[in-house]
């Protein structure tokens, strides 16, 4: 088993928690002293740094949200003077004002170190060729992975958001062994390679995918691994945290969250702590970030956290599979539905293609949900009854899992959106 930093990665849970406690106290003191934003927030909540002595005391601190970053646009939550900033990233403002994140030199180092540990845990190192197919530029995916790959001494192939045929020819010609991109984009690469008569499993060196930036199910993972003959590792991290940071290890059983730099909490709907292993919303406190420290930042991702030592020997807690987003949840006829549940059902049905879209609308006073799936050549039958039966069978399996009716619609191949960023999987046409 290879570790990037065996000593740190295998500290006991007790040692990690002591370290977190020390760093939390210092973080809160610094935030109070250097950030007018946090000073005001703490005052409004009636807490002062002296109240924060143990890890449990963190519950006295108020949560922060994405709206705080927007409200203080561009740099109102920064805690260092401009002269210490060495980089900016900006998230796209698809839902409003963009959010700006800043990094000190040390912030970049910590980010890179976290990724070096993570990529090593994915079995990568010197001799590997890692194709970064995340966008470079304001998005954190491209540059983040780039630095991480260089740090472990592997070769980085910075294709970025290039054309897919180019991704494939370079992958083949330069012997790419791992690719970093979104899972839906890797599926798309697979489709395009097939149309170019290239079999990724047998005609390239590709053996690993570092996949994230959008939710994906275990069934999608299975499909990717089988179709492309690779191991597909989940990666987690958002621009607010720095960028992509944590991945699974070879055990592929949870994402190792480096606890010396990040304190992860899971909270219930009311903000209270859940039992270890229980599902809730992921809340992040950055223990090492200087430029833009986050204290109890609500990520909106629904998952659970496990502190049990992993079979790989790493002791840092694991973020289990992301099951959806608080804001992805759609309420259809009073029933909570997550796109990830739908994906999970669809990917278990071999006749269903790799892409889908959910359309929610209202017919009179009633919500109606349609799930669009593409017809593939292997599914296409000359008997229309067979296709209609497929629709019914998928609808039944969806109903069994979701407890709400979904109308299944077959659509032509290539007509549903494929994305290299976050997939547009849900269209809500309801006007309320």
């Amino acid at each position, binding site marked *: 088993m290879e570790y990037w930093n065996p000593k740190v990665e295998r500290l006991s849970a007790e040692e990690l928690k002591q370290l977190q406690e020390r760093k939390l106290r210092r973080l809160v003191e610094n935030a109070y002293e250097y950030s007018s934003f946090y000073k005001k927030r703490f005052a409004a909540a009636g807490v002062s740094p002296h109240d924060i002595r143990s890890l449990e005391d963190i519950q006295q601190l108020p949560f922060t949200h994405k709206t705080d970053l927007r409200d203080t646009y561009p740099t109102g939550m920064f805690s260092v003077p401009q002269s210490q900033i060495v980089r900016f990233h900006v998230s796209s403002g698809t839902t409003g004002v963009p959010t700006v994140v800043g990094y000190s030199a040390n912030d970049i180092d910590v980010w890179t170190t976290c990724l070096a540990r993570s990529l090593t845990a994915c079995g990568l190192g010197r001799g590997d060729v890692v194709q970064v197919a995340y966008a470079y530029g304001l998005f954190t995916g491209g540059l983040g992975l780039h630095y991480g790959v260089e740090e472990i001494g592997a070769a980085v192939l910075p294709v970025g958001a290039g054309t897919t045929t180019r991704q494939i020819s370079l992958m083949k010609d330069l012997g790419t062994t791992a690719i970093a991109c979104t899972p839906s984009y890797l599926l798309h690469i697979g489709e395009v390679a097939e149309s170019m008569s290239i079999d990724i499993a047998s005609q390239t060196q590709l053996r690993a995918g570092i996949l994230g930036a959008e939710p994906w199910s275990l069934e999608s993972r299975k499909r990717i691994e089988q179709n492309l003959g690779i191991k597909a590792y989940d990666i987690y991290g958002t621009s607010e945290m720095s960028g992509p940071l944590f991945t699974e290890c070879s055990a592929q059983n949870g994402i190792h969250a480096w606890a010396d730099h990040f304190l992860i909490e899971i909270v219930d709907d009311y903000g209270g702590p859940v039992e270890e292993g229980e599902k809730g919303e992921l809340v992040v406190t950055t223990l090492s970030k200087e430029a833009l420290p986050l204290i109890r930042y609500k990520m909106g991702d629904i998952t659970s956290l496990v502190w049990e030592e992993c079979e790989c020997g790493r002791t840092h807690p694991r973020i289990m599979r992301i099951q959806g987003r608080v804001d992805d949840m759609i309420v259809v006829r009073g029933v909570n539905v997550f796109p990830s549940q739908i994906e999970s059902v669809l990917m278990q049905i071999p006749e269903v293609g790799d892409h889908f879209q959910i359309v929610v609308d209202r017919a009179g006073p009633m919500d109606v949900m349609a799930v669009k799936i*593409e*017809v*593939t*050549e*292997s599914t*296409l*039958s*000359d*008997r*229309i009854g067979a*296709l*209609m039966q497929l*629709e019914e069978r998928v609808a039944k399996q969806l109903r069994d899992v979701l407890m709400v009716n979904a109308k299944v*619609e*077959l*659509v*032509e*191949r*290539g*007509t549903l959106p494929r994305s290299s960023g976050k997939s547009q999987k849900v269209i809500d046409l309801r006007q309320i």
Partner: protein
Amino acid sequence: MRMVTNKMLKQITLFAENKPGRLASATKILSENGINIRAFTIADSGEFGIIRFVVDDADASLRHLRRADFTVSETKVIGLEMPDTPGALWEISRALSDNDINVDYAYAYASATPNKAILILQASDLKKAVGLLTELGFHLIESSP
């Protein structure tokens, strides 16, 4: 022992959402590539349909339609030359029914040979149907030039 022939015809099945212009764009591609449609039929579910074609060059049609991103597949069907006279279809359907073979769908076109029609048949047991019809002395075509 009797030789069982495996004479079957290639049919193209194309998936199309039920919206204006889909038949037009598919047939435009065939037209631009000089492919002659001998017969076709549409089955629809309300929201989508499948269009089945018998053409003079099935392989080329598949290639061109695929390139234009249509979802297409190839199926084997029976192409049966039958006399264009009263009772001909009855004779065929009775033979199939007596042998417990179900007709899934069928369509027809007039043959280039005078007083002959070509019947396109899909059956629940295609091999059995081919064997039976050959035995009964029908002429099965393998291509439709």
